[in-house]
């Protein structure tokens, strides 16, 4: 049960932290239509986070808000990629594409999880995530194959994000303990990379040749960006411990 809760935190924290970063985009998007679109995607991710954290919370005897607001950064289990600072719109598009392509494979595989509740969450999430990837892919192509500046910005953003991609697919003993329930992240890598590289090809972008970074998000070694992000996210809830909102 502790393993299951831990696994739910992996997925839930990735979704929550992604949603929090997208929340920073609202009122800052390059056009109003995109404020709406990024808001939608953020809401989907937040919905996924709530379903996953609520489930984890039931196993741990805490509710979704206790998990979101009263854990420190070292207790979060998200990968580093999702907590990178907001950056420019190219960064947003690239991360949405990379995280989306991973999530698409992840949730597709989890629809057949032996844990029915998780399978149900995945079945809802997969539809949402497919749309997110489509949306990101559309922008990647427009910007990659747009102007010289947009091409350069996209390639730079891709180079910045790429070293963080591998962590998503790192194998981990936890998924072995959850055989039939969880998915070995390593098995998602090839199909996700196929999806990504197909988009990058169309976008006239080059797959970076950069080294991966160590990661460690799944094991309580969060990125340095998570702490300041949580400081803001949690400030009000923590100022009124035990209050209802």
């Amino acid at each position, binding site marked *: 049960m502790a393993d299951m809760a831990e696994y739910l935190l992996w997925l839930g924290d990735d979704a*929550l932290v992604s949603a*929090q970063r997208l*929340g*920073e985009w*609202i*009122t*800052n*998007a*390059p*056009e*109003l*239509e*995109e*404020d*709406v679109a990024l*808001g*939608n995607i*953020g*809401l989907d991710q*937040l*919905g996924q*986070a*709530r379903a996953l*954290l609520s489930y984890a919370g039931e196993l741990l005897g805490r509710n*979704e*808000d206790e998990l*979101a*607001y009263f854990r420190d950064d070292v207790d979060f289990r998200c990968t580093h990629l999702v907590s990178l600072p907001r950056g*420019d*719109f190219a960064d947003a598009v690239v991360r949405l594409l990379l995280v989306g392509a991973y999530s698409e494979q992840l949730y597709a595989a989890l629809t057949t999880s032996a844990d029915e509740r998780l399978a149900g969450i995945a079945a809802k999430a997969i539809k949402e995530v497919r749309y997110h990837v489509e949306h990101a892919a559309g922008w990647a*192509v*427009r*910007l990659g*194959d*747009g*102007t010289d*500046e*947009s091409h350069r*910005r996209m390639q730079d953003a891709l180079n910045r994000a790429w070293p963080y991609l591998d962590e998503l697919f790192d194998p981990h003993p936890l998924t072995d303990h959850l055989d039939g329930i969880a998915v070995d992240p390593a098995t998602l890598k090839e199909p996700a990379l196929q999806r990504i590289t197909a988009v990058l090809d169309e976008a006239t972008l080059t797959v970076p040749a950069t080294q991966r970074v160590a990661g460690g998000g799944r094991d309580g070694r969060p990125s340095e960006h998570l702490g300041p992000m949580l400081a*803001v*996210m949690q*400030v*009000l*809830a923590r100022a*009124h411990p*035990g*209050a*209802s*909102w």
Partner: protein
Amino acid sequence: ASGQSSFDRVIAGDGRIEPRDEMPDDYRKSLIRQISQHAHSEIIGMQPEGNWITRAPSLHRKAILMAKVQDEAGHGLYLYSAAETLGASREDMMQALLAGKARYSSIFNYPTPTWADIGAIGWLVDGAAICNQVPLCRASYGPYARAMIRICKEESFHQRQGFEILLTLSRGTPAQHELAQEAVNRWYAPSLMMFGPPDADSPNSAKSMAWKIKRFSNDELRQRFVDMLVPQAQALGLTLPDPDLRWNAERGHYDFGELDWSEFKAVLAGQGQCNVQRVEHRRRAHTEGAWVREAAMAHAAKKAARQQQSARGAA
């Protein structure tokens, strides 16, 4: 002349004017002004609430707030489209906003220092907006009326959500209750001023009413709003900050105190706490997004050229 008379006939018969119908120039200009101001208000209004998206105190409230701010972007989009049917261009309207030349509702120049402000904006500001806007669902210009129907539906959700936030705070810890009361203290008078100056000082109103764009006077709407607020405030367990507020059995309405219009005018004149910040925020987002919009256009042009070329190749 036949156009003019057909316009008059439609107005007199409480019918709808549609984009291709002839209409007096003044009517068109007045509508463009009103609709674009309304659109700008939705867009600028995203900011005081957007200010709390990253800090919303529960995931439930965060989701509601994100959805609300996103709805406002959507409202802005409908309204710009409605204005476009009158021949205004979105680009021009946006540029006027960024240049600080266009008006938007002054209420969004007030800041949101606490979470309770999100409740107060929902309850009071959206509440006032609904009072203003429900009659607009019957406005004589079709695209505007239809946009308002959709917008009003969503606004009434927003108002209920604001009420709920305040109710939860009011019934929460003493500190939470105080946050709620303090926010209501700050937003009450500005929300009453959203209906515009007293009828005696409102030059545009008469014409708007004759054209059936506007259906009730500023003071009528303000009274309706106050009458609605009083019982809701009681339900909230919060006090409206007006010592002169009392039931007048003779009028069948609540009497209320004089408003301090000098502050309203200062904010309107650009001297509110956040006027500069709001326009600067929009300007920054617009400027930072320029490369994205240019790239999207460049890509569309490339794509069109390729399609044309391949069509030519096939021919």
